[in-house]
């Protein structure tokens, strides 16, 4: 079922993107209405400044619609949208000194701690505590958690957005969950 919904949505996006490229205003509106809420949520979640998030979301859409001019209209829309979003957000965070680089070499990390890392979430009594823990995570991991927990994207789509192989996305997710669990242990 999930597969079917994903495919349907991708196909719908593709048709709308073609329409937008051909100058169909209603297609532009439909793409915007369909994706703006999630996009704005991502911008807010990452940037945490309302006006900055709204500006970023507008800029992302502007880039997308400009890109459609050169595009053949067949590229998967959502991965493209969120790739642009990721680039814009990372760039904004870097320029304002709010991007923390993370350990690039993840080979030493044992992935099997992932299950234990998730279980404390079930015992949480304070949502605010979880939000604060999320806020303390390095930005790259927060991005990974958004794309895996919030959006219903396929692994290949997430890999494309994050610019990493699928296997590495998994490791990123495990690492993010582990760090989250460590943050939750903090008083």
């Amino acid at each position, binding site marked *: 079922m*999930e597969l079917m919904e994903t495919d349907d949505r991708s196909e719908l996006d593709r048709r709308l993107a073609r329409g937008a490229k051909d100058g169909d205003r209603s297609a532009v509106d439909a793409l915007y209405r369909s994706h703006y809420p999630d996009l704005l949520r991502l911008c807010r979640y990452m940037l*945490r400044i309302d*006006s900055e998030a709204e500006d970023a979301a507008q800029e992302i859409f502007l880039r997308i*619609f400009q890109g459609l001019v050169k595009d053949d209209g067949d590229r998967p829309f959502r991965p493209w949208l969120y790739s642009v979003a990721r680039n814009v957000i990372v760039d904004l965070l870097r320029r304002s000194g709010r991007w923390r680089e993370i350990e690039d070499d993840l080979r030493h990390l044992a992935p099997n701690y*992932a299950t234990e890392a998730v279980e404390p979430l079930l015992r949480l009594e304070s949502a605010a505590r979880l939000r604060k823990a999320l806020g303390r995570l390095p930005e790259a991991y927060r991005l990974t958690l958004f794309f895996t927990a*919030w959006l219903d994207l396929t692994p290949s789509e997430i890999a494309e957005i994050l610019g990493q192989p699928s296997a590495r996305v998994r490791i990123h997710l495990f690492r993010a*969950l582990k760090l989250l669990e460590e943050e939750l242990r903090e008083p």
Partner: protein
Amino acid sequence: MTESHVDRTQAVAHAFGLTIGTEEFSAIERHAAACADCAHRLRDLRRSREILRTAIEDTPLGEIEPRPRSARPRSRVLAAALAAGLCLATVGVALFRPPASALKEKIPGTTRQDPAESTPTGKIQAIEVSRSVTADRPSSGKAVSIDLGSLQGVRPGSTFEVVRGSEVLGTVTIAKMEETWAAGSYHARKPGGESARVGDAVRPLVPTAGSAQGSAEQAPQGPGADAERVFRSIESRMLGAKSIRVRYSVEGSNDICRTGGTFALGESGKMNYECLYTIRADVRADYSTLAVSNGTTLRMKVATLKTTVSDADTPPRLREKMVRQLVSFGLLGPVLPRRDDQIRSSNGVAEYDMRAGLPWDELRAYDFKRSVDEGGSGILAFRVKVDGLLDPYAVKLWYDPATLRLRRRVLVLEKVGIQVAEVYDEFAFDGEIPNETFVLPKKE
């Protein structure tokens, strides 16, 4: 996955959607259907994901980090969509985010805010050039102050009617002009009678390079003085006008976007600014900005991919601000690239960071030149700089020498290759503007 149970890492990946579309997905689902332990574990993991999802959804703004002091509301413009960005930013930056220090001092010798605020007052209608200025009742023998009498048409012997409302109080005639340009002092006398001083030295809105802030401008001298006088005259004419009505269109140098709109400036803080822009590439989109001030409230309605409406108090000295903008940068003026280190290039497209808005206090006009084109339009060339900007704008302004109405303006920022032409299809002083123009648009 082991024979007996789903591997723990596979289970997490599965719960977080990282097995969708793979063979792993079906295998895990099949196993969970037959294994209560694994099904239970997957349920817990999915619940954990939901908790995480809720936390992401509920992440409040501003709770974790206060807004950085330097991060003022910002707009960033892609050069390829220059007109669009210009449109969005122009009024917002100009009206909502001027530096607090801007225009702190009242300009001496003028009553340009609202004639009704200075009592007793009448209006002097300049017969020759149909401009409106304010003045004390001349029959009282008090000094008559002119709100920027304007150089054009003001010369010894010029006669004015002094009116209040529809009542003609008398006439005054300029007897002597101490200076030959707008910032000078004038003397007037009633026909056949006594002299009265008309107007004090006026500090220009847009200081020229080297002029002292807060003091009356000295008459320009040396090369370009004549051109600078024209600049002052245009500025004065705008300030003295009862109303200004403009219809304009803009063409960016890259020819992708087209922008145009209308601008109406009335008395008592009333204004109507509308800007429409269309992206004229394969993708077409129409966006608009509407800003209306009824004298007390300024309502901004920006329709891009969504429509936003915001209200603010009408900024003090709205007329001065808009005239300063109109005479120096034009209606798209506040969009200024900042220093080089804030200009970057991404995917071959230059971008400009204008989060700091327009620092009006640092604005200077200089290097004036004047010429006339074949069609009889006066051409005023000058540069406008703002301290902190690496490069000044070169401005070329076409105007009607007889009426000082603007016809066309070209802004050039040579280093980064921006050129914007603002064409005034209509530019009228002192026309009647219907009251409906200044009625706030509906929020819906």
